[in-house]
């Protein structure tokens, strides 16, 4: 199950265009080093993230999925991140029932000025998911 030495997790990240994507961009321009495991998908708002996207990502082979949004109260579209919170908690319960561990699915708040925070979160998630091992969804369900 755990081939930690070679395993490099694939994490799909949904980043909102206003805060978290700019925060990730800042991490880049600041030349902060962090693991390359997260591949970002830009959406306009974390409230755009449909639970179907998360499920699609896991079913296509992602080892982890993360949603990044603006801090509560600071959403560029006012309340989109609150919608993300609601969906996240319900979805997580459902994913747990499919055997997908808590650490594989995360919701984080990163503002446009928090490049170092973004890097830290990705580093933390990569390490945790690496120690959990690959999800191997397709093998699990026999697809």
């Amino acid at each position, binding site marked *: 199950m755990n081939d930690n030495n070679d395993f490099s997790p*694939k994490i799909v990240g949904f980043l909102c265009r206003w805060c978290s994507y700019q925060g990730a961009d800042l991490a880049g321009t600041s030349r902060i080093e962090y693991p390359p495991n997260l591949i970002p*998908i830009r959406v*306009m708002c974390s409230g*755009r*993230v449909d639970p179907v*996207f998360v499920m699609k990502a896991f079913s296509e082979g992602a080892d982890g999925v993360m949603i990044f949004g603006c801090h509560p109260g600071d959403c560029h579209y006012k309340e*989109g991140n609150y919608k993300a919170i609601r*969906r996240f908690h319900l979805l997580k319960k459902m994913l747990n029932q499919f055997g997908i561990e808590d650490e594989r699915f995360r919701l984080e708040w990163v503002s446009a*000025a928090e490049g170092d925070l973004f890097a830290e979160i990705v580093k933390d998630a990569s390490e945790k998911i690496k120690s959990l091992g690959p999800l191997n969804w397709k093998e699990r369900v026999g697809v």
Partner: protein
Amino acid sequence: MITATIDGQKVSFKEKTTILKAAKNLGIEIPTLCYNEVIKPYSACRICVVEVSLNGRTKIAASCSTEIEEGMTIKTDSLRVMNARKIVAELLLGRAPDSPQVKEIALLYGVKESRFKSDTPQKCILCGLCVRACDEIVGVSAISFINRGPEREVATPFKEISSTCIQCGTCAYVCPTGSITIEDVLNRKVIHSEMTLGPTTAIRVPSLQSTPNVPYIDTDACIHFKTGNCEICKVYCEREAINYDMKEEIVDVDVGSIVISTGYDLFDSSKLPQFGYGRYPNVVDSIQFEKLCHASGPTGGKILLENGKPPERIAIVHCVGSRDEKYKKYCSRVCCMYAMKFAHLVHEKTDAEIFEFYIDMRAFGKGFEEFYHRMLEEGVNFIRGKVAEVTDGAVTKAEEGKLIVRCEDTLIGRVRRIPVDMVVLCPAMIPRKDAEEVMKIFGLTKSADGFIREQHPKLAPVSTDSDGIFLAGACQGPKDIPDSVTQGAGAAGAVLSLGKVFAMEPIYSFIDEELCAGCKICISVCPYDAISYDDEKHISRVDEMMCKGCGSCVAACPGGVAVQKGFRDEQIFSEIEGILFA
């Protein structure tokens, strides 16, 4: 018309006028002690007496309360008047031998010493101005005369601490001999208090440079707002410009763009107790020192210590709270230059020796480096090192009575103790305390340093993520006047270039009318009320002009019927597949 003669001059008045006022009109000054032009006269002190002749009878009368009558002849400087005033002065001097004002008036009549000696010499001459002021102007009557004869004095009822007194200080203000004083019984250590506020009245112009340059009434301090009385300012205002009924109005204004220029606050130096701010006298921050140097300030521009003497040695400390891991990590940009400006002013105005404690000299602008060299030539002692503390603990005789600045001089590698008279701190420029509230109201975001975040540091330094809202000045980050003005011009330009073209999002959402079931879930999640319900067709419809493209409706739509241009579900699925391929 009432006609009379004063000192040989004929005068005529339409209405009732006292002799004192009539004489003043003619330019004749009569000395007074217990008279105040806005309070009813009491004629207690008797120093204003004059000789009045009417219908063949002559008498000595108090000019402050005696009214002119037809045919009166008045003499204000006859021998009889002089003698009368001389006795009055001598009596007053016996009662109040130490009052400078009484001594001055006595000297006018050649009285240097009084043959009348009082058992209880004091400054109060029982003129009653304080009592009348408290009654007529303030309207609370907290004090009055008590007892009679030699026991007569001014006091509160039963000489107890008064609950009616509103601590307005009017009694002290009108007292002609300085008998009444205001004391701060809480014994707060007030350090250079005159430098932050100066003596003020309840109606005042905030500063010489205020815009608009008109007075306002501080309703917390104003007697009229406490007791309904006074209104003296209205009495004096010839333009009748005073209106006590003005109220704050909240006005709704429809605008197309907003420029936020809400400014900055200064870091509170008392958070760094090692510098002694708020503990020692003569430790001030830059804004207070600026007021000291300013010609309209409390000292008229003279640089003085709290004891009124000019300093012999001044320390200027850079980076108080700035470039500090524990407080503000950033550099406040303006302090090196204004610290040098202070040094230059001190050099111009005093003979003081100046010590500047810096970490780096940031002289980045036009002419700035040249100014630094000029300061070096003027003999300012620049010491490279952070100040560890300011203390009054003297170790040698030379340090006694001084403030000692302890620092490490990194260029010579030694720890130094430098005794000075005055310490000027350069605190960090910080975001205003209500900056977070402003950001919430306008939907703006915060930079890492807490100031308002610009859209892009290089490509959009005056815009914000919210369309039509621009930034200018220190609210966006510490900056000096030239940079603030530049940014202000930039923001104005950005506003003017908005023009009459309305830009809309190309990534708006739309709803497939054939498939929509009319559940209205999308309407409930739209933060911009951009979706409306068509009652005839029983479907929801997005207004593309209002839609900002957040995609909330798309994610919420149970039927997958709402679609966002550029971020359709299929597009996102493709991205996911692409990422996870192989």
